[in-house]
């Protein structure tokens, strides 16, 4: 059973999502090849080779792959597809964009957001914003999977014995043109892999207050910052901070929800956190139903007290 795993990276570092997806991939097959795509990605390929359980690193290095556009990326994956029983990717924005394009061409029904591998053809995945868990078995000859990374621990680093091979990238006149990218820069831990996440909701009231209230606390706890949809819609935080059904799904050791009421769409993105703390002035807010520790109070008073108590 050979598995092709798409590496997720930002051209500087291999993301932790890749190591987490690898853990799932290892449960679906015994020979894992990892595909590193992009432009100038030899350092990423070397990093991928150090992951435990990878036998081969395939490198598709071409300027057309620099922006992860679905057309050339799908064509590259499809050029290799015949050799694999399973094609998998982390359910990141790139994986979600490209894998259905691969699946449809292979006439395969993709299984999205795998949270558990029961056997190599039977999987669990959340539906209805995680309010139900579906167990599905596929009869397709090839399995195309996206992996919900918060459900799997990262695979450890190994001996780095994987063979690195360069593959030919399909050439074509790709129609999609990359124009520009706005990357949110932050020195804080990455939201998807942080041990502590502090999220803010609409109660923060403005972008300035969102930054001023959450920033110092996040700094103190070395935490990533997240946001509810309401806070992102209101412009208090950028879209890449959104935690929820359609944003990022996180499962940190500690999740602190500040002024978040707890709509089911938000809970879908954080309810697998190990410890949940909710601070909200509405004692009836649904967030308290999933919180291990609830504090009813005005977050503008509680957060400074929290910082003081932390010392």
């Amino acid at each position, binding site marked *: 059973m050979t598995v092709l795993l798409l590496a997720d990276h930002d051209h500087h570092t291999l993301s932790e999502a890749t190591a987490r997806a690898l853990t799932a991939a290892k449960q679906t097959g015994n020979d894992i090849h990892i595909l590193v795509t992009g432009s100038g990605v030899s350092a990423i390929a070397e990093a991928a080779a150090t992951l435990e359980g990878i036998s081969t690193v395939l490198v598709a290095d071409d300027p057309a792959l620099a922006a992860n556009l679905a057309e050339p990326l799908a064509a590259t994956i499809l050029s290799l597809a015949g050799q694999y029983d399973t094609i998998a990717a982390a359910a990141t924005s790139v994986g979600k964009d490209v894998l259905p394009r691969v699946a449809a061409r292979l006439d395969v*029904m993709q299984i999205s957001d795998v949270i558990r591998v029961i056997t190599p053809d039977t999987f669990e995945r959340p539906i209805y914003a995680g309010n139900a868990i579906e167990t599905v078995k596929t009869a397709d000859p090839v399995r195309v999977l996206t992996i919900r990374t918060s459900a799997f621990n990262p695979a450890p680093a190994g001996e780095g014995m994987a063979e690195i091979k360069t593959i030919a990238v399909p050439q074509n006149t790709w129609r999609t043109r990359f124009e520009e*990218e706005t990357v949110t820069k932050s020195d804080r831990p990455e939201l998807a892999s942080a041990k502590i996440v502090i999220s803010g909701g609409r109660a923060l009231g403005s972008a300035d207050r969102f930054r001023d209230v959450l920033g110092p606390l996040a700094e103190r706890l070395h935490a990533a910052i997240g946001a509810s949809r309401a806070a992102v819609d209101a412009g208090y935080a950028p879209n890449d901070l959104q935690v929820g059904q359609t944003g990022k799904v996180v499962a940190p050791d500690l999740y602190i929800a500040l002024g978040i009421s707890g709509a089911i769409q938000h809970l879908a993105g954080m309810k697998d956190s190990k410890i949940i703390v909710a601070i909200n002035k509405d004692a009836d807010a649904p967030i308290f139903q999933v919180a291990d520790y609830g504090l009813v109070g005005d977050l503008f008073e509680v957060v400074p007290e929290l910082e003081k108590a932390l010392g």
Partner: protein
Amino acid sequence: MKTILVPVKMVLDANVRPRVRADETGVDLSGMRLSINPFCEIAVEEAVRLKEAGQAEEIVVVSIGPAKAQDTLRQALAMGADRALLIETADSPEPLAIAKLLRAVVEQEKPDLVILGKQAVDDDCNQTGQMLASLLDWPQATFASAISVEGDRLRVTREVDAGLQILSVPLPAIVTTDLRLNEPRHCALPNIMKARKKPLTVSNPADYGVDTARRLTVIAVRPPATRKAGIRVSTAAELVSDLRQTGVL
């Protein structure tokens, strides 16, 4: 653009808490409020705005599902779509089958643009738009938060994990909507009345020669593990002390 095609799905209303059936066969929809999938509503709104801005002549909406999905199509018509197609099915086909049916509809209607929701909030698959683009061999721009027409191309801002990415795709193309693309309008009563008179044709998958048999067998649908009730603390100091005891701080 002449025609924009907008596929829409009827789902359990996003504000209703799903109840899993005791026999583990699925989520109980009987007697529940069913509504247009929120991402599909955003797709209809965007198409109507493009038409209102003079960028498109006609909006066709299509739904694949039970007869009751006509309600969803009527809502799209009330928002400003011109005509509707229902491909009637007993259950809800998988995204691959939906994409094959939509390919057949695209071949018939020849739209310049197909706008779809990025995911349905029932099965949360996030596949149909990408699959349709693949089957048609069209370019795609998924998770859109802004769209503008530039000649025979679309400039699309996409919400990606790292921030925002802007792409330019030539038409015809597939766009899938993210939450912040627009805020859908409320339908005024006169528009709801007018929508009743707009054309809605009903067909079935066999008319398009598409096999909708499922590829995935659903073995069980179960409720998720529940979290045990927590405790209330009254001060920040108490919270920090409790968290320190757990070892997380």
